[in-house]
């Protein structure tokens, strides 16, 4: 059972649209992460947060932005979606010496 909740699970959207992928958690994780993963491929860290009002860019450059106004909520926004953004986006959370807990992901298709 996931304690990281991602919505929507699937999203098909046209080029140029603004989208927000939602991620929420119920376990009080202080650190949260966004990974980008093409199907069956490796994970790429695109954003993370140490806590409220903390956001950092990850290893892979991304045109997306994130915010962390509340501990429970870590949304990812794309201001203008492009076909190259088509991928799966995974949100995760962790606390001190706990494993990463992942949501089920959002599969984004930009047409």
């Amino acid at each position, binding site marked *: 059972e*996931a304690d*990281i909740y*991602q919505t929507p699970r699937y999203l098909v959207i046209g080029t140029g649209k603004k989208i927000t992928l939602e991620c929420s958690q119920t376990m009080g994780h202080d650190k949260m*992460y966004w990974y980008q993963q093409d199907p*069956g*491929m*490796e*994970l790429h*860290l695109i954003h*993370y947060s*140490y806590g409220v009002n903390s956001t950092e860019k*990850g290893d892979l450059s991304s045109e997306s932005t994130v915010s962390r106004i509340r501990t429970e909520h870590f949304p990812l926004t794309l201001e203008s979606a492009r076909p190259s953004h088509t991928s799966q986006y*995974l949100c*995760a959370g*962790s606390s*001190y*010496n706990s*494993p*990463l*807990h*992942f*949501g*089920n*992901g959002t*599969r984004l298709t930009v047409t």
Partner: protein
Amino acid sequence: AQSVAQPEDQVNVAEGNPLTVKCTYSVSGNPYLFWYVQYPNRGLQFLLKYITGDNLVKGSYGFEAEFNKSQTSFHLKKLSALVSDSALYFCAVRDRENYGQNFVFGPGTRLSVLP
């Protein structure tokens, strides 16, 4: 710098046979090691972790992993594979004492268990 290698892109085993999925790591301090499994169209599910103590760690679904400090390895094993074990497996590492560091994942190994 931290790194994780999973030398095999694909592992094929027959149902009922033992399986091993290999992982080697590099970390500056003491390692905090994990295995995750990913089924199609899902997020990663935690299988097991090693922090300290017994080198043989038991996890979910009959999986276990052996920590070998001298070989910097953390291979995933199961005595008898099931078709339902077919999935993508990721090894991950973090410096145990450095909570500020992010987890580093290997590239993944696809396990196919043939009936």
